């Protein structure tokens, strides 16, 4: 048993079926559980966050497992993974785990092993100065920001992912390493509306968005695309068949109907959307996934567009901090960001966060009416007085 060094390894291109193994599925999970997890599987009694990033889980038998949670970029080199392995071998009997939100968890079975592990993790830095394994991401704080590929590996992004996440995470580092918020705040990032990262139910969601309709590559569209599929791909019926002056099959686009979802480009490579001035970032807020207290809810668009100001996105960082700070100061204990916004009213949300409300934030797509206010219950803010003045209601 060994990894092959041959150029084509065990694969024989003359007989692709030879010795092919298929449908194995993933390896079974049980073999990757450290003994303390195997011994207490299904028998956990309770847990406690001992300090930010450090958890203890206590079994019915009295066994304990201590977890140190570390943030990390989900993009890693093999060298970094090998360093994770070195730590896991040194302190955790060779076991390590990753969370759904791209945190790294090191588990030990006694408190004595905890201190050395923590000290070691805290001491490791990249030569550029950033922490390799910052401890945190538990409880009423901000945990790791899940994200998508962006310019590193995707063909449809409207912004970059890894850089924006690094910029935001640097600024929210204190919130990652502490637990002083009213409840947990989940920040998520997706670099286009396809949302590989499905950020639509996050407390704060950052979304890359296009603002220019597709450019039509008339010369090749009929060869590289199924034109009927491209037409059918448009949810607003903006694309229709057309012919070039030379008589080649192509499409035309009613630009004023486009809401820039990019689905046509996904179906047809001859309809690219990306553009330096057009592309940017939308911020959504107030979503949640958990059923705790209130049902799960969608995030709402609160900032329609900010520029792709690489590499540190100062405008995005500024608005995220505005939202987070207003929430931190104003919300009740256990209240998620969306629950807070609903309690105080969205008009107060904009006032307290210092965010401008523009017509872009009023839904005019499907089911828009469900979001219009059909009540006299509201709170006065400057935005209300502006309306009153505009219609001659007050001086």
């Amino acid at each position, binding site marked *: 048993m060994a990894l092959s060094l041959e150029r084509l*390894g065990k694969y024989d291109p003359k007989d692709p079926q030879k010795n092919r193994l298929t*449908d194995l599925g*993933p*390896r079974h999970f049980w073999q990757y559980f450290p003994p303390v997890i195997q011994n207490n599987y299904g028998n956990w009694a309770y847990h406690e*966050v001992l300090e930010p990033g450090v958890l203890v889980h206590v079994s019915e038998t009295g066994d304990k497992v201590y977890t140190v949670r570390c943030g990390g*970029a989900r993009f890693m080199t093999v060298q970094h993974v090998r360093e994770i392995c070195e730590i896991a071998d040194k302190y955790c009997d*060779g076991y390590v785990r990753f969370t759904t939100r791209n945190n790294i968890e090191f588990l030990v079975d006694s408190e004595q092993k905890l201190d050395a592990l923590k000290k070691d993790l805290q001491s490791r830095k990249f030569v550029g100065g*950033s922490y390799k394994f910052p401890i945190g991401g538990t409880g009423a704080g901000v945990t790791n920001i899940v994200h998508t590929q962006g310019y590193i590996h995707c063909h449809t992004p409207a912004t970059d992912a890894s850089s924006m996440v690094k910029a935001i995470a*640097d600024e929210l580092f204190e919130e990652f390493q502490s637990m002083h918020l009213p409840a947990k705040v989940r920040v998520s990032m997706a670099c286009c509306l396809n949302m590989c990262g499905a950020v639509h139910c996050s407390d704060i969601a950052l979304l890359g968005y296009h603002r220019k309709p597709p450019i039509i590559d008339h010369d090749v569209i009929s060869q590289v695309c199924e034109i009927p599929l491209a037409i059918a791909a448009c949810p607003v019926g903006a694309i229709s068949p057309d012919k070039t002056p030379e008589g080649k099959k192509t499409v035309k686009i009613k630009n004023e109907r486009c809401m820039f979802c990019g689905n046509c480009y996904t179906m047809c490579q001859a309809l690219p959307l990306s553009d330096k001035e057009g592309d940017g970032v939308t911020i959504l807020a107030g979503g949640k996934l958990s059923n705790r207290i209130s049902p*799960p809810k969608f995030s709402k668009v609160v900032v329609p567009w900010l520029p792709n100001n690489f590499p540190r996105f100062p405008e995005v960082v500024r608005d995220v901090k505005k939202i987070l700070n207003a929430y931190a100061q104003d919300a009740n204990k256990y209240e998620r960001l969306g629950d807070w916004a609903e309690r105080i009213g969205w008009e107060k949300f904009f006032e307290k966060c210092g965010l401008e409300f523009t017509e872009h934030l009023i839904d005019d797509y499907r089911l828009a009416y469900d979001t219009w206010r059909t009540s006299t219950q509201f709170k006065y803010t400057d935005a209300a007085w502006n309306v009153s003045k505009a219609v001659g209601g007050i001086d």
Partner: protein
Amino acid sequence: MPFEPKEPQKEIKYSEMRIYTDEELNNYTEEELKNFKIKHDIPDLEELEKGPWPSFVSDAKQGALHRRKLADDRMLIDRDVIEDMLGQLQVSFDEGETHWKHGGIVGVFGYGGGVIGRYSDLPEKYPSIAHFHTIRVNQPASKFYNTDFLRTVCDMWEYRGSGLMNLHGSTGDMVLLGTTTEQLEPIFFELTHELGQDIGGSGSNLRTPSCCIGKARCEYALYDTQALCYELTQYYQDELHRPAFPYKFKFKFDGCPNGCVASIARSDMSFIGTWRDDIRIDQEAVKAYVAGEYVPNAGAHAGRDWGKFDIQKEVIDLCPSKCMAYEDGELKIDNKECVRCMHCINVMPRALKPGKDTGVSILLGAKAPILEGAQMATLIVPFMKAEPPYDNIKEFIEKVWEFWMEEGKNRERLGELMQRFGLPKFLEIIGVPPAPHMVKTPRENPYIFWKEEDVPGGWSRDIKDYRARHKR
């Protein structure tokens, strides 16, 4: 060991599998790394080396230096892949546009997913990433690993690929980023033969299922998320590898209504653990919370002084169905009114535990905005027992799939099909009786699509007969 994989799995020993020596793995010094410049100018990326959060740029640079110092015959794709990837990323920042081409169909023989073709649109400038395909590797349930496995993956991937990866991709896979078309089959053979490990889903098939940490390390797990995730992943291997669906289909498994893997927002079929008996109360432990002996919410709020724990304000008053009371030092729960939101249990985990008669709620149709807007999953099955071999769950899945495969249009997610058909019709087709649990409110319009058989006498009527009673 309560579970056995279908096929016995050989243990992987890195010492037997390894490609690289220790000297090769540690082939650069800290000093060299500090002075290391990649072959392209990347000022914006170097800016991202500053700040406390782990810098993906610093990490990429150490990978690039490591590759640069390996001998020529110690890697099968271009040495410069990481440097070229960083160079192209800087150009993308400068120009505000991606430089990856659209798609490209590549894969391994007999599978229709798991590999995503990726080509640079600047191949002359960045020749080593001209082909830069992604391979999704199906992660073990809840993402526990041992280092023998991870180190072996690293050696294989450094030798046959870029050495860049995601731990993990959004759907849950271990994502290997960047290799050539030539190496796809050899990598697949190494994965299956040596690592005993298959690739994941992409395209119009079952996507790699994922689950929360479940019973491995959580007291709230109400069914065995890993076991169900593993079982269904194995049982539906054909659906995972060979696209036969209208579009993608995702399963996710949350052990309780806290929803740590986001199944309710992110999966076409969401399994969320729940219970149907009573919350178990340890009254002594409740008193300990009230007295301040136990820290509330498992210490998750310890960073701020929120004052003394107030059970009335923090638990009783926040209960969404107002089914709790704390009187004379005793906590009472009217369980038939409870909606199992988990708040009280989350606040007092040492005093309250979910019931013991547990199962899953099944919700259907969540998806991200493409195409008709984002959807959350709709509750279809309030409660189902979830015990091996899970035949009841498989039967339900297959009923839903049968309908979707029959009626779903190209690229129509289940949730969109449910909307197009309407929930009543959907329920009828999959044979589930309607219940008020499936709606937030009953309909607000009376535009009911009555069927002919609903109405006595049917719809065929004679106008003469009508005119005999009503003059024109």
